[in-house]
C-alpha cells in the first residue's frame, strides 16, 4: 500500500481537508480509518482511546461514515433499500419497506436533501446518487463523515450545493473530512488543511492562513515542478504564440454521446497545427475524454465534421486513425494502452504489429521486434531493461514510459495524450513532459487533455477549455491566465481569440 508514516489529528466539529497529488495516499489513509484496509503499523486514537477497526462495521459503530470516490450503491435497488442495507427495519421478520422509506425520507429532509426513497438508484443523476451516499452515512448516525474526492464528478452548481451541505453538517456539530486535490475549492470550505505527499502527512495548516500557491508547493515539495505550481506559468523553452505549421486537425461542431447515454460533446470546434501543443482543460467529466476518443476513432461521432490529417473525421476507426498517423496515450493505461499479461516487446509492437520491423508478411518478426524494443528501452531509460518480462511486472512510471516510447516511435503527425502523468512520480513526470516537447519539436501536433491545470499551463501553446461538452474558452499562450481559465472551467464564456 501507499502509506508510510502518515499522521493526522481530527478535531470534533471541524471541516478538515486532506489534499495531495494523485497517489499521495489520501484515499488509502481514509480507507484505513474506515476499516477497509489494515495498517501494518501505527495507532489510531478516538476520543483519546486507542481503537482498532477490523471491518467497516466497527467504524460505522463508532460513528464514522464514508462517501467513496466511486459510489458504493447497488444500482438495481431503490434509494431506501440502499440506505437501510445492513440495518433493515423489519416487521414480523419481513422487510418493512414502508418504514424504511419513511425513515430515509425523514433523514433526507432533516439534512435538506430532495430524494425520492422509492426511486431506483440507476435512474438518479450523479449528484443525487452522491446525496444518497451521504444520507446512507448519516442514517447510520455518522458523527464523522469522510468524503473522498466528492466533487470530481459534480457540476459546479452541484459542487456549490455540496459545500453548503458540508458547512451545514459542521454547524450541527459533526465532523467532516474532505479529500481533494482541488486547492481553491478546499480553501473555500475547510477549517484546516492537511497536506499529504508520498504517503506522509507533511503539513497541517489553517485554511485562513494559507494560499493556493503555498499549498501547491507543499504538495509537490521543492521539486522540479515548483515553479509551474505557483500559478504563474513559466514560459517553457520553445513555446511560441502562433504555430505556423500546416493544420493537422480541423474540427467543427463535434457531437458525441457518453457512456451514460447522455450527450458528452455538444458542438466542439478546434484546430490543431503541426508543431504545437494544444491543451484541453476542464473539470473532470466535461467531455475531454470523449473528445480524445473521437479523435482516435474509439468513439462514434453523432454530428459535426472535421478533417484529420487529410481525411474526414466522420467514420474514423482506430485502425484508420493509426494509418493516418495519430498517436494515442490514453488515460487508462491498463485498460486501453497495454496488454499487461504480455511481454514488454509484445506491448511495444501493439498497434504496429502488422508492419516492419515487427512483422514480415503474416509472421511476427522476432528479431526486428527485439532490436527495436531494446533501442527504445535504452532510449527511454525503462527499468528493468528487459524486453521479455511481463509488462505488469514494471512500475506504473515505467509502463507509461513504454507507452510513450511506442507512440512517439511511430513518429505521429497528431499525438493525442490524456492525463499523461497521472500517478507518476516526479522524475517520470519530467521525462514524459520532455518527450511531449520533443514530439512537438519534431513537428507533431499534440492534443493534451489534462485535469491538472498546472500541467496544462506548463506545456501548452494554446488551451481550449471544455465545459459540459462545449468550448467555453480559447487562450493563446500569451493570454494564459489561471483565473480566467478557472472561470471558463466553471462555465463562464470567455477568451475567444
Amino acid at each position, binding site marked *: 500500500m501507499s502509506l508510510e508514516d502518515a499522521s493526522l489529528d481530527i478535531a470534533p466539529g471541524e471541516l478538515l481537508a486532506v489534499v495531495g497529488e494523485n497517489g499521495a495516499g489520501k484515499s488509502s489513509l481514509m480507507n484505513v480509518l474506515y476499516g477497509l484496509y489494515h495498517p501494518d503499523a501505527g495507532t489510531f486514537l478516538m476520543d483519546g482511546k486507542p481503537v482498532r477497526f477490523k471491518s467497516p462495521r466497527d467504524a460505522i459503530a463508532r460513528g464514522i461514515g464514508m462517501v467513496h470516490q466511486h459510489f458504493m450503491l447497488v444500482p438495481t435497488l431503490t434509494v431506501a433499500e440502499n440506505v437501510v442495507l445492513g440495518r433493515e427495519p423489519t416487521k414480523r421478520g419481513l422487510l418493512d419497506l414502508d418504514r424504511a422509506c419513511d425513515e430515509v425520507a425523514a433523514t433526507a429532509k432533516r439534512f435538506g436533501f430532495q430524494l425520492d426513497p422509492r426511486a431506483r438508484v440507476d435512474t438518479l443523476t450523479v449528484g443525487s446518487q452522491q446525496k444518497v451516499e451521504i444520507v446512507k452515512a448519516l442514517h447510520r448516525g455518522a458523527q464523522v463523515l469522510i468524503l473522498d474526492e466528492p466533487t470530481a464528478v459534480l457540476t459546479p452548481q452541484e459542487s456549490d450545493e455540496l459545500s453548503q451541505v458540508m458547512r451545514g453538517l459542521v454547524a450541527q456539530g459533526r465532523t467532516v473530512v474532505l479529500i481533494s486535490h482541488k486547492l481553491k475549492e478546499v480553501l473555500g470550505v475547510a477549517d484546516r488543511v492537511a497536506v499529504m505527499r508520498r504517503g506522509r502527512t507533511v503539513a497541517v495548516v489553517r485554511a485562513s492562513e494559507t494560499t493556493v500557491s503555498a499549498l501547491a508547493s507543499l504538495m509537490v515539495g521543492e521539486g522540479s515542478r515548483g515553479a509551474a505550481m505557483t500559478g504563474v506559468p513559466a514560459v517553457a523553452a520553445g513555446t511560441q504564440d502562433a504555430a505556423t505549421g500546416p493544420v493537422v486537425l480541423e474540427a467543427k461542431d463535434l457531437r458525441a454521446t457518453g457512456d451514460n447515454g447522455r450527450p458528452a460533446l455538444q458542438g466542439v470546434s478546434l484546430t490543431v497545427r503541426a508543431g504545437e501543443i494544444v491543451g484541453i482543460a476542464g473539470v473532470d467529466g466535461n467531455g475531454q475524454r470523449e473528445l480524445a476518443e473521437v479523435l*482516435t476513432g*474509439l468513439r462514434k461521432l453523432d454530428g459535426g465534421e472535421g478533417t484529420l490529417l487529410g481525411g474526414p473525421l466522420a467514420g474514423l*476507426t*482506430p*485502425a*484508420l*486513425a*493509426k*494509418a493516418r498517423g495519430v498517436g*494515442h496515450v*490514453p488515460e487508462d493505461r*491498463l*485498460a*486501453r*494502452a*497495454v*496488454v*499487461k*499479461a*504480455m511481454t514488454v516487446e*509484445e506491448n511495444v*509492437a*501493439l*498497434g504496429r*504489429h*502488422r508492419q516492419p520491423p515487427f*512483422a514480415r508478411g*503474416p*509472421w*511476427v518478426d522476432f528479431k526486428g521486434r527485439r532490436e527495436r524494443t531494446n533501442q527504445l528501452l535504452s532510449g527511454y531509460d525503462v*527499468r*528493468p531493461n*528487459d524486453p521479455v*518480462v*511481463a509488462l505488469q*511486472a*514494471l*512500475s506504473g512510471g515505467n509502463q507509461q514510459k513504454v507507452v510513450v516510447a511506442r507512440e512517439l516511435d511511430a513518429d505521429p503527425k497528431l499525438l493525442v495524450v490524456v492525463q499523461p502523468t497521472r500517478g507518476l512520480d516526479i522524475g517520470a513526470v519530467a521525462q514524459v513532459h520532455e518527450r511531449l516537447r520533443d514530439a512537438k519539436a519534431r513537428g507533431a501536433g499534440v492534443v493534451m487533455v489534462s485535469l491538472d491545470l498546472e500541467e496544462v499551463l506548463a506545456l501548452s501553446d494554446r488551451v481550449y477549455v471544455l465545459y459540459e461538452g462545449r468550448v467555453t474558452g480559447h487562450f493563446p499562450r500569451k493570454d494564459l491566465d489561471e483565473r480566467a481559465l478557472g472561470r471558463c472551467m466553471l462555465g463562464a464564456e470567455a477568451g475567444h481569440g
Partner: protein
Amino acid sequence: MGERTRQVLPSVLSVLLALAVCWLTIALTRDADTATRAYLQMLWGGVGNWPAFLEGGNSTAVLRPLGEAAMKAALLTLTGLSVAVAFKVGLFNIGAQGQMIWGALAAALVGAHVSLPGVLHVPLALIAAAVAGAAWASIAGVLKLKRGVHEVISTIMLNWVAVSLVDNWLVIGPLRAVAEGASSITGTAEILPSSQLPRLLGDSSRLNLGFPLALATALGVWVWLSRTRSGYETRAVGLTPEAARAAGIPTLWRAGGAMALAGALAGLAGAVLVLGTEGRYPGSLGAPYGFDGIAIALIGNNHPLGAALAATVFGILRAGGTRMQLLGVHKSFPELIQGFALLFVAGRMVWLALLERRQKRALAEKPAQAGVEVPRA
C-alpha cells in the same frame, strides 16, 4: 519461481495428486497391492505390455494398446484444442460436444454418400466436418458478439439442441441407414472405404492417421498463436479487448474467428471418430468428449502443446482403463482421475499460494542466497 514454472508446475502436481488420490481410493476400498497392480494394468493397457513383449511375446501386446491410446488421445487433443483456442480469445467453449456432433455427422454423410478417390475423399470429409463444427460454434459467437449473450449459457444450450436434433431425430429418422436383411442398424450408413482414415500399423492395431493429424493440428495452432500476426492479435483480444481495439485490431472478427476455429477443431474430432474408428455416425457419440476437452485444455494450461501432452497422458490412461477390469476396477476409473486432475487444476491459486509460501520459507532460511537474486521491480 520462473514464469514457465508457474505455468507448468500446478498442472503436473494436479495430475500427480489426482493419481495419488485415486490410488488411495482403491487402496482403502480394496488393498494397496490391488491398487498398485491396477495402476500397472492401466499403464500396460495404455502403452503396451513391454515386459511381456521383450520376453518374446507377441507384438500385438504392444501395438494394440498403443493404437487404442492414440485413438483416444487424438479425440482428446482436438476437443482440448477447441476449448483452448476459445480460451485464448477469452471465451469459454462448453459447446465442443455439440460442435463435435455436427462434425461427426457431416463426416459420416460425406464419407458415405460422396464417391471420390481416397486422396480427395478423406480431406473433403475432414473439411466438411470442420465447416459444420465451425458453423455451429459461430451461432454462439454471433450471439455473444452481436447480442451479448454469455457463451457459457449459449453453448450449453446448443449442446442439447445438437443432441436432440441429431441423436433423437436425424440419426433415427431421415438419415438412418437402410437396414439390409433382418439386421437392424443403429446410426447412419457406413462410410465408403475411400474415406476411412488409413491405418498405420496394419490390422493388429487401430492406430490410424487421426493421432498424427491431431498432433500436427496442435503444432499448427501453436505456431499460429505464437508466431503469426493474427495469432498475436487473437491473444491480445483475449487478454485486454479494449487495448486491442484501441490498437486498431478488429476485435469482433478475431473473437468470432477464434470461436469458429474452436468449432472447426471440435468438428475435426467428430470426423476422426467417424472416419477412424466408428465407420458411421453411431446412435450417439457415446462419451462426453467435448466435456473431456475442457479438462484437457485446462490441465494443459490452455497451451496447444500442453493440451496435446495432457491428451496423450489421459489417452494412455483411458485406453488402459479397460485392462483394470481384470482386477475388478471399473473401466471408468481413468475418467475419475481426469476429473480430479481438473478439480485440482481449478485450484490453481491454491497451488501457487502453497508454492510461493514454500519458496518464501526457503528464502527466509537461507538469507545469504536471497540477496543474490536480482529483484525485478
